[in-house]
């Protein structure tokens, strides 16, 4: 795997670093959740130009910096490493900006009012990435950037109940 100079990427993105981080995260989610898109981008038989065109079509409103980075990733055949790239750049941005990227998982899209409560509890230095996973049935799962997990989901409670019954 060819290395990406994240420090340089951060410098180049300038004030758009946060936006780029979000775009890369979204791209990662898109690839990992949409198997057809993932398979197309991973397929070495497909031309690089076709892959770039697909990304442009799927992310029409993304920044120029994002498309440049994705072009680089496609040219260097690093699509399979997108999770690692997104995570590494996210960690760098968080470190430079003195912030934290936490992940919130809900069973359905949360209201702004509800998200406001989370932001109030977490503070200004925490940015949330929202995930929708109907399998958690209700409640939420809060995953912090440093690996801590608060599972307040109904699926989690049912799982806990199941363990208690089975003991």
């Amino acid at each position, binding site marked *: 795997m060819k290395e990406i100079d994240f420090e340089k990427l951060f410098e180049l993105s300038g004030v758009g670093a946060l936006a780029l981080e979000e775009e890369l995260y979204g791209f990662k989610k898109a690839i990992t959740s949409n198997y057809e898109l993932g398979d197309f981008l991973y397929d070495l038989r497909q031309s690089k130009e076709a892959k770039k065109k697909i990304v442009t079509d799927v992310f029409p409103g993304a920044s120029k910096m994002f498309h440049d980075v994705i072009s680089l990733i496609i040219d260097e055949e690093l699509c399979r490493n997108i999770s690692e790239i997104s995570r590494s750049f996210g960690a760098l941005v968080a470190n430079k900006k003195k912030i934290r990227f936490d992940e919130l998982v809900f069973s359905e899209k949360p209201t702004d009012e*509800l998200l406001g409560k989370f932001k109030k509890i977490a503070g200004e230095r925490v940015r949330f990435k929202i995930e929708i996973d109907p399998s958690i*049935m*209700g409640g939420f799962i809060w995953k912090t950037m440093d690996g801590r997990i608060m599972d307040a989901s*109904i*699926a989690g409670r049912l*799982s806990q109940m*199941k363990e208690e019954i*089975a003991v």
Partner: protein
Amino acid sequence: MFELETGLIFWNTVSFGILVFIMYKWGLPPILAMLSLRQKTISDSMSYAEANQKKSEELLFEYKKKLGEASESASRMLKSSKSEAERARLDMLKQAEVQADQIIEGARQDLKSEKEKIIKEAKKEIADLVVAAASMVIGRTLSAEDNKKIIEEALQ
């Protein structure tokens, strides 16, 4: 009638005396020598016989002594063999008892673990059913408002 003839007596006496003399001079010594030799032979034979008898008695005594010792040794060996056989029998019996106890304990443990396994599996199945039922009910009945309440309660 009875008549004493002195002349005949005389000559008979002379003849007898000559005979005694001849016997004494030439007849008696070889006889005495023979008798003496015979006596010596008999005496030697008797000494030899006595010695043999003594030796035989000693041998007999020795034989009886050894026979007694052999008998005693055989008796001891028999007793020892019996004792060893008894000990071996008891050892085998004890070993068999220990093995039987081990088998019983093993079977008891197997039974216990099998019972625990069955209970555990039953609990797991019950838990699965309960959770599946609960999931179904919650999935059908949980409203957005309920979900919001659950989230807010967790945040407090």
